[in-house]
């Protein structure tokens, strides 16, 4: 198995541990990740707020880079926003011939072109569908027994482009969590919104949404995430949210690959657990035992 790997900007910065743990876990699973040296930002949510065409061109440029490499494989993308943007290109190309021409006219600036056809897949999709719980279970050598994990999917990993799971009631993370020897914290919030970029622009709303999530996660030892934006909203504002909600809502929030890595027996350094903002002592203790 091999994939083009698009880490995206966040994974070079605030979500470094997501990047490193993803690579570590993929390596452990024998999955080859093909890097694109010249990749650029997908436009995040900013491009679409400014220019429709730009919001297509920025991700298309990366697809074009991959297309140039002439390898028969899909993209795997850990960041949900990047995933959405890359995938959007193909979804639109199929429907809109005019757009295809425009995009290519712009890409021509860099002597690139993209005709479509490279599948952009979310890391979660690849883990759940291609690799699967069986294969993961086979690599587990340090079961996360007694751990109760709340699977958090967020929005853009599921919507509007899903296909690999129910966009309202996603379940695909559950067999993976169980494969690690952990227990699934049943909650109805897996697909709810964390507030995303509103944390920057409309903080009070984002805090409200995050608060609801953290409240529902009570009883779990840890929330598993698959998106740097979700991770940041969930782990970095816990103090503030606790103040707003008037209760202690602190809880560990880890990237799913970090949890998988732990069960694979990878050490904390390999998974950059030290970079996590919310990796509570109680979880640490629990894991030690």
């Amino acid at each position, binding site marked *: 198995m091999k994939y083009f790997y698009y880490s995206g*900007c*966040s994974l*070079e*910065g*605030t979500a*470094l541990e997501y990047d490193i743990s993803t690579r570590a876990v993929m390596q452990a699973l024998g999955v080859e990740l093909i890097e694109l040296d010249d*990749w*650029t*930002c997908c*436009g*995040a*949510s*900013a*491009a*679409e*707020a*400014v*220019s*429709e*065409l*730009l*919001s297509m*061109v*920025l991700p298309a*440029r990366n697809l074009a880079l991959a297309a140039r490499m002439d390898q028969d494989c899909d993209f795997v993308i850990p960041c949900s926003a990047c995933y959405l943007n890359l995938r959007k290109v193909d979804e639109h190309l199929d429907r809109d011939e005019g757009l295809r021409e*425009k995009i290519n*006219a*712009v*890409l*021509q*600036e*860099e002597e690139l072109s993209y005709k479509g056809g490279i599948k952009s897949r979310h890391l979660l999709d690849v883990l759940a569908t291609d690799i699967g719980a069986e294969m993961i279970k086979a690599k587990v050598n340090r079961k996360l027994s007694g751990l109760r994990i709340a699977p958090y999917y967020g*929005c*853009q990993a599921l*919507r*509007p482009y899903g296909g690999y799971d129910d*966009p*309202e009631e996603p379940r695909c993370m559950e067999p993976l969590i169980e494969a690690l020897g952990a227990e699934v914290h049943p909650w109805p919030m897996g697909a*709810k*919104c964390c*507030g*995303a*970029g*509103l944390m*920057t*622009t*409309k*903080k*009070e*709303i*984002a805090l*409200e*949404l995050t608060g609801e999530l953290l409240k529902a996660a009570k009883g779990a030892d840890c929330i598993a995430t698959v998106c740097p934006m979700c991770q940041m909203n969930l782990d*970095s*504002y816990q*103090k503030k949210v606790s103040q707003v909600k008037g209760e202690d809502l602190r809880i560990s929030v880890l990237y799913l690959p970090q949890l998988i890595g732990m069960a694979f027996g990878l050490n904390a350094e390999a998974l950059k657990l*030290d*970079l996590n*903002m919310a990796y509570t002592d109680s979880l640490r203790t629990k894991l030690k035992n």
Partner: protein
Amino acid sequence: MSEETRELSEGHAEEDLMAAIRENIKACMQCGTCTGSCGSAYAMDFTPRQMWRMVQLGMVDEIFNSRTFSLCSSCYYCTLRCPRGLPLTESIHGLKQLAVAKGVAEKKGARFYQTFLDTVRRYGRVREMELMARYFIAMKSPVLPLSFTPLGMKLMMKGKVSPEMPQFFRPGKLDGIFRKVKELEARS
């Protein structure tokens, strides 16, 4: 903020964009599913359904006086659930674009987007710390950075952001692409 990015957003023919949005949501039957699905609806002055109605009835001024579209977190629930299959989140983005173009977008949001894209244009990728710094400068607000200080400090302590600004590429990495986009959009 660079002039180039600003021009980029002004390159649109505003009416075309508004017409496109109206076209998008023409088939709306006012069922209210979007509003019911929206996590931010409670904080909006007009609900999404009301806003689509206003689009239908051409109440442009009221739309851009409202803060409704700026509260969208792009969770795509409304798009997913709209029984008519209308591209609602996309249409919200359209309204955001229009607001930026009209210069009526709430300062905070619009500036953020433009700053962000400016970074992308220059460096190809985004470094959050640099972005923040540029954003605060663009907002010309001495107070705003303070509300992010705790996070910044935390991040810095974790070594996730460094005060230095490593250069991935030469500055002006995506100038060509941005220029071309602007050119094409002006034409349409």
